């Protein structure tokens, strides 16, 4: 595996572990809580939508 692949694996593992920890403990902010916080207002929802559409266009319509 390349050095870049190793770093991506480390980041993905950290995200997976932190997701599991935050879901196991109600006192900690989970990724669902972060999403819900963004969705409380028009500005947060619009920011998320902009990121979502940019990601979709990049992934599905441009050369990866």
């Amino acid at each position, binding site marked *: 595996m390349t050095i870049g692949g190793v770093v991506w694996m480390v*980041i993905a593992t*950290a995200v997976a572990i932190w997701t599991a920890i935050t879901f196991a403990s109600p*006192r*900690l*902010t989970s990724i669902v809580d972060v999403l819900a916080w963004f969705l409380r*207002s028009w500005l947060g*929802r619009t920011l998320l*939508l902009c990121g979502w559409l940019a990601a979709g*266009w990049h992934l*599905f319509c441009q050369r990866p």
Partner: protein
Amino acid sequence: MLGITAACGAGALVWWEGDQRYPTTGAHASIAAVIVVTAIAMVALGRARQKERTSTWIGCSVQTLLRWRERPAAIAAAAVWAVLFAAVVGWDLNSFVHQAHDLPTLSRIIGAVTHASWGRSLVFALWCALGGTIAGANRRPAR
């Protein structure tokens, strides 16, 4: 009956999208259509049903950060999410700038999955589900 028809339509769209490729008109038109429909749905579903005004949202968020001692665990956990997000963005930018074979960008890794029809269908379905969540989730009940 309407639900079954909608589910069949969504399934057909996901299956069809799997056979599209990035430079084609079909891929561009379908992704643009999903984006437009989701944006319209967000505005239509959110009319007078947003939980907070933007100014209130910003003010409450700042207050929560300033009073971090009241909920230290929750604030620290949110900070960890910010660090993880920064790590993803930072490493992706680093890989993009160097353009080296042994430093793949995140989109190149995902592109390896979406190269296959099943992979493109799967990622497209997840992307649509996230878009639907952004458009409709966490609303006030309709009056």
